[in-house]
């Protein structure tokens, strides 16, 4: 193993069984096999085949994490992320392949494990720290910092059962971050806690990475994955669906859950979204080109076409553009018939999105047509998806951080005299 590789997974597979009784019985069989067949050559047939009721919770997972690298693990619930983490942490054994881990493994999982509700926060720091493998001396040295970091100076001497769940998780995280492992496994712990605390946690993780630790991060927050991870692995049904540059993998992953077209037209009015008064005909973000994203320097045009079947409505429209992480970039609209004088006709609305507004990336457009600004006649969330690209960043259209990418004007003055 290369000296810099901290975790190496090679063709790792794990079988699980959904049926409880069968699962327990397989547990007995596996235990007996390990106890009584010491030098079993792991017969290929045995490791490859599934028993009745079993399925692959993990299948052929291979990757490497080096020092200072962070692997972001993404995927829907039940995709096998936690199973993989458990194997990396050495809690359960792979049924196939092998895992090599260099150095001490620490895990930010199950924050506050072993907290006793009757004991005070201070007493629980000692217990939890010891469970995480800290020595008594390390704990007593860090105890003030822990209380400070968890922001619990007032509550620390009251029983933990009086804490809110947020407070006990904060305390758990503060203790857990005292560990100094060479490999850190983080499982969706940033989801809890308030915004301030989240920022502190992210900062702490960056420090850990800077110190040459290898981090494996599981998160459903794609912004965290993009910001922290150097590689992303997308798992689906226990298999590795994609692995590589985080921006690309995250886009692919998010792409599975929304429409993937920049133009949509309803030929059949009865199938179109809408009701008796208004029905949508067409939504498009131009220019449409499957091979090329919309250039950041030309801007885009949003086209909206709908049929109105009723007279005398005060029609208006609203457009909402979201990033893939569902961050709203803008929410805007206008009034089409402000005087309540709609006619039975086909309405076409062209909206211009200026250049140097949207950053490169994938966006989703939601459309609403309303009456008197309060009754939604048509509402289609994420009706089309379009992509904006930055030519100067090359064909990969890697993204710069940020939601918007404005072109700023600046002036630079020099004053040589003042240096003398």
């Amino acid at each position, binding site marked *: 193993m290369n000296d810099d590789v901290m975790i190496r997974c090679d063709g790792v597979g794990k079988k699980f069984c959904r049926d409880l009784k069968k699962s327990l019985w397989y547990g007995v069989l596996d*235990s007996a096999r390990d106890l009584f067949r010491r030098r079993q050559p792991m017969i290929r047939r045995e490791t490859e085949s599934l028993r009745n009721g079993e399925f692959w919770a993990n299948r052929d997972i291979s990757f490497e994490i080096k020092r200072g690298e962070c692997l972001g693990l993404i995927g829907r619930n039940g995709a096998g992320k936690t199973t993989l983490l458990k194997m990396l942490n050495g809690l359960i054994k792979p049924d196939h*392949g092998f*895992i090599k881990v260099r150095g001490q493994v620490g*895990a930010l999982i199950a924050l506050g494990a072993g907290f006793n509700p009757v004991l005070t926060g201070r007493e629980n720091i000692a217990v939890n720290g010891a469970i995480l*493998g800290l020595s008594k001396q390390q704990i007593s040295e860090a105890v003030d910092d822990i209380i400070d970091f968890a922001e619990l100076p007032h509550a620390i001497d009251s029983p933990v059962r009086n804490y809110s769940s947020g407070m006990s998780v904060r305390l758990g995280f503060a203790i857990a*971050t005292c560990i*100094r492992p060479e490999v850190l496994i983080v499982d969706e712990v940033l989801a809890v806690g308030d915004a301030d605390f989240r920022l*502190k946690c992210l900062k702490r993780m960056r420090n850990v990475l800077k*110190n040459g630790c290898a981090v494996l991060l599981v998160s459903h927050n794609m912004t965290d994955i993009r910001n922290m991870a150097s590689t992303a692995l997308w798992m689906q049904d226990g298999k590795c669906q994609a692995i590589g540059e985080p921006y690309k993998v995250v886009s692919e992953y998010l792409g599975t859950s929304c429409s993937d077209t920049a133009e949509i037209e309803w030929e059949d009015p009865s199938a179109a979204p809408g009701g008796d008064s208004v029905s949508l005909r067409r939504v498009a973000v131009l220019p449409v080109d499957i091979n090329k994203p919309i250039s950041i320097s030309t801007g885009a045009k949003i086209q909206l076409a709908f049929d109105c079947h009723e007279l005398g409505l005060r029609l208006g429209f609203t457009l909402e553009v979201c990033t893939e992480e569902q961050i709203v970039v803008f929410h805007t609209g206008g009034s089409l018939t402000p005087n309540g004088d709609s006619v039975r006709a086909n309405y076409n609305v062209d909206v211009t999105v200026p250049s140097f507004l949207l950053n490169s990336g994938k966006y989703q457009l939601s459309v609403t047509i309303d009456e008197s600004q309060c009754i939604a006649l048509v509402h289609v969330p994420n009706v089309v998806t379009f992509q904006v690209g930055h030519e100067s960043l090359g064909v990969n259209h890697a993204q710069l951080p940020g939601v918007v990418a404005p072109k700023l004007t600046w002036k630079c003055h020099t004053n040589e005299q003042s240096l003398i």
Partner: protein
Amino acid sequence: MSTANFPLTTSNSDCAELPVVIYSPASPLAHPGKLIGEIFSDLWRCRELTWILFTRDLKAQYRQSYFGYIWLFVPVISTTVVWMFLNSTQVIQVAETPIPYPAYVMLGTMIWGVFTSAVGQPLASFQAGQSIFMKLKVPPEAFILAGMSKIVFELLIRMIVLVPVFMALKIVPASTFWLFPVGLAAAGLIGAAIGFLMIPLGSLYSDVSRLVGTVISFGMYLTPVVYPPPTSGWASTIIQWNPMTAVVMVTRDWLTLGHSTFLLPFLVTTMIAAIVLFAGILAFRVVLPHLIERMGM
């Protein structure tokens, strides 16, 4: 917002020195020496954790109570009182005991209590810590050892009761009284051996602990705990062959009489138990990943 200053000092030394662990489907018993070394180094590494867990349980147990440790004396005293009552009212006829009956029962239940607690403790500790073992890599042996320490601690407290009882009943301890703790330790060892063997199957199926519980409560009456061993009849044969008879009798006799006819079976039983315990600890380690796997996610 306060910012804590943790000493972020992950060792940047040559990482080639870092230990490498390999997880694969192979059985750890393929390298038994490595496995044994691992278990004992884990236990040594976790001595602080064991102590902290022990004190945690102790503190937590009596924090929500006014009488606290006084409750520890209650079982010994109540069992003794019940049997004294049964004996004095002649409801149950108990043969003549070599020492006053209350002391006989008290010592018997004390020894038997150590045995039964030691049988149940490993599985109970393992199950109590399940939520931790399935998420964090921590040796469950430390949790079990902490549970065992609790038994020892409670025993020490109960032994204090013996002093006033012996004085009141004018019993003079035999010269071999210092061997009494050795006997208690043997009772605990035998219990722990059974307890460790129970964990693999017992953590998967609740039938095991129920079955063992039933057998043990029945076993108390096949062991001379509250009555002296009968000398005739079919019951005497069973009691003679019951390995716990020797342990209870020898331990009690060491404190009170100074001589015992059961010394040889006592030694044999203890030796076998020690071997079984060692095998049980090894087996537990081997099957541990499979047990954690079946606990759920």
